[in-house]
């Protein structure tokens, strides 16, 4: 089992996440959305990278959290931290309910199933336009700030908030991964039929992992809602589910930092490419993905690790 203690490189990494405040203060809004996406990818990593549950409908929980946070801010109160908790709970409840069905399937059936749930929820949100605002997005709320810091145009509070939430969730995820439960999940991923033989309740473990991932995805959605004061159907869309999968594969699944690195690279590349060429930037993103998949089949982190091990 890997050493559960923080390695020096990790301290460096998290110290670097503070750099945008000093080095690129005009990119803080982007940085806050990178942090949200990284958190979302982290949640997918828990189920895909560690438990082996392939999902093409993970945006369902992201959107659930986003809409819950938005509805609370609209109808009840605009204090974000408590809103975050409620959003986490609502996404968790949804995750728990769905987990009973989802964990019974593997591979292709699983992809179809998660995708189906995602589409159903997106369509439900579209139809319930009285509640969600439908295609126009949820309107009529504004989250002024967090703990007295204003969510302004420069995005300082937004990034600080998103980063803090990402870091806390990361610590939780890290703790889970290095626990016996985390080890059991990897066991299930490697051989689902063998795990019960050593007395591991496979389905219960998977349900738990799926619910935890749903909670974290819901938190990510809520942070996006709070920092932008917008919620739209896009938070539930298939595109978002697919994007986060691509991000995770790009960074390296099953590596905890894979989603974070993937999110940084994907979103920054997207921002730069689309800045240079707003019409045809998808070409370059596509090229980047093809290159990564061809030369670094285990993602960027997987590639780096292989590189480090080679000399021996």
């Amino acid at each position, binding site marked *: 089992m890997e050493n559960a203690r923080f390695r020096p490189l990790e301290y460096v990494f998290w110290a670097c996440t503070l750099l945008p405040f000093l080095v690129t203060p005009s990119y803080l809004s982007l940085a806050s959305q990178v942090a949200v996406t990284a958190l979302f990818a982290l949640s997918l990593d828990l189920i895909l990278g560690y438990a082996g549950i392939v999902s093409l409908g993970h945006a369902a929980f992201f959107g659930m959290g986003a809409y819950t946070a938005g509805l609370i801010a609209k109808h009840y109160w605009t204090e974000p931290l408590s809103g975050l908790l409620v959003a986490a709970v609502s996404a968790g409840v949804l995750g728990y309910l769905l987990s009973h069905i989802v964990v019974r399937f593997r591979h292709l059936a699983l992809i179809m199933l998660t995708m189906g749930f995602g589409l159903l929820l997106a369509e439900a949100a579209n139809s319930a336009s009285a509640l969600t605002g439908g295609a126009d997005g949820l309107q009529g709320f504004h989250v002024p700030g967090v703990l007295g810091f204003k969510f302004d145009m420069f995005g300082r509070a937004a990034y600080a908030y998103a980063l803090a939430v990402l870091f806390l969730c990361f610590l939780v995820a890290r703790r889970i991964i290095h626990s016996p439960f985390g080890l059991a999940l990897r066991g299930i991923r490697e051989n689902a039929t063998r795990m019960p033989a050593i007395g591991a309740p496979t389905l219960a473990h998977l349900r738990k992992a799926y619910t935890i991932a749903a909670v974290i995805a819901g938190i990510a959605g809520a942070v996006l809602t709070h920092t932008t004061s917008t919620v739209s159907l*896009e938070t539930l869309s298939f595109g978002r589910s697919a994007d986060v999968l691509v991000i995770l594969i790009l960074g390296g699944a099953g590596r905890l930092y894979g989603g974070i690195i993937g999110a940084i690279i994907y979103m920054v590349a997207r921002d730069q490419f689309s800045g240079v060429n707003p019409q045809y930037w998808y070409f370059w993103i596509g090229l980047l993905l093809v290159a990564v998949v061809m030369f670094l089949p285990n993602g960027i982190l997987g590639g780096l690790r292989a590189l480090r091990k080679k000399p021996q």
Partner: protein
Amino acid sequence: MLRTSFVLAAALSAFSVNAQQTVKIGMPLELSGQFADTANQMLNGAKTYMKEHGDTVAGKKIEIITKDVGGPAPDVAKRLSQELVVRDNVDILAGFALTPNAMAAGDVSAEAKKFMVVMNAATSAVITKSPYMIRTSVTLPQVMETFGTWAATKGGIKQSYTMVTDYGPGHDSEAAFQSAFKAAGGTIVGSVRFPVANPDFSAFVQRAKDISPESIFIFIPGGAQPAALGKAFAERGIDLKKTKVLGSGETTAEAALKSMGDNALGIITAWHYDYMSKVPLNQKFVKEYQSVANGRNPDFFSIGGYDGMHAIYEALKKTKGNTDAQALVDAAKGLKWESPRGPMMIDPETRDVVQNVYIRRVEKVAGELVNVPFDTIPMVKDPAGERRKTQK
């Protein structure tokens, strides 16, 4: 292409007095994905105006900075608008094909005090998001309520069955048409909504046919769907001479008419712009537009972009190049001009578009299917905006 224009702009600004003499217009557009065509038509409309009128106004050079939002994504639209203001120092925000994106950018306009021009987004409430915002496109109630009233009065139609696409604009159109039609004495005998990506309309049309209403109102986004619907009408044997089919301009737009063919004959639509209009101003516009857009014909997105640029130019002329948001929006209020679509005005109170709504019928003119206007409701204000005024 982008790079050359950048170098050109840099060279030109070196010749002119200094860099501060530039007015930057930030346009976060939906340049990739499903709505790329819409956004490009809008952008080309704006470019056509700049080609016709030069890129200098009130002694200042106009520079457009585009960003890609990638679809209906208000979080991205908001971030890009913020970045345009914070990083690129734009003076004006413009564009916005989609309502959620316009709503999100409205917050930025209000907070950063930037003049904002909505060139499409047609949900009425968009305009309330910022006091520095004007709209140069159209609002759904403006056309649909007007059409509902017209149908029940001048149109002499007593009953109608509504068929709309099951999404935001469809719901809004359905509500607007139904309420106005009923208020003017008509009855709605039934309604149906079909899914957004619906390939076959036979079942829906059959339901309408079973009721055999005097008229059918349809709202359907442009593209391939109007053709499928037209086909279903023909197949199910709905006679357009007996059953009047009413729709929005998108139902019989250029591509839709081409794919519907003769099935479209007799469809009555209400809309604010048609590129086939024989007004000289429009014919000149279409010609210019084709040269900018590689031969494409303009549509109502293009005219929104074109008139949006006109409003920016005229407002800048009035403020003598001052880009203060309050000064610009004050200058834009009450602006009146003759657009290729006809006369139009920016309502001094609501900052929304005021324009003619044309009632057209699809006819064959010289072997070509054309929307022939046969009635005009002059200078219609957004009815939803008028209601908001009385609520206050």
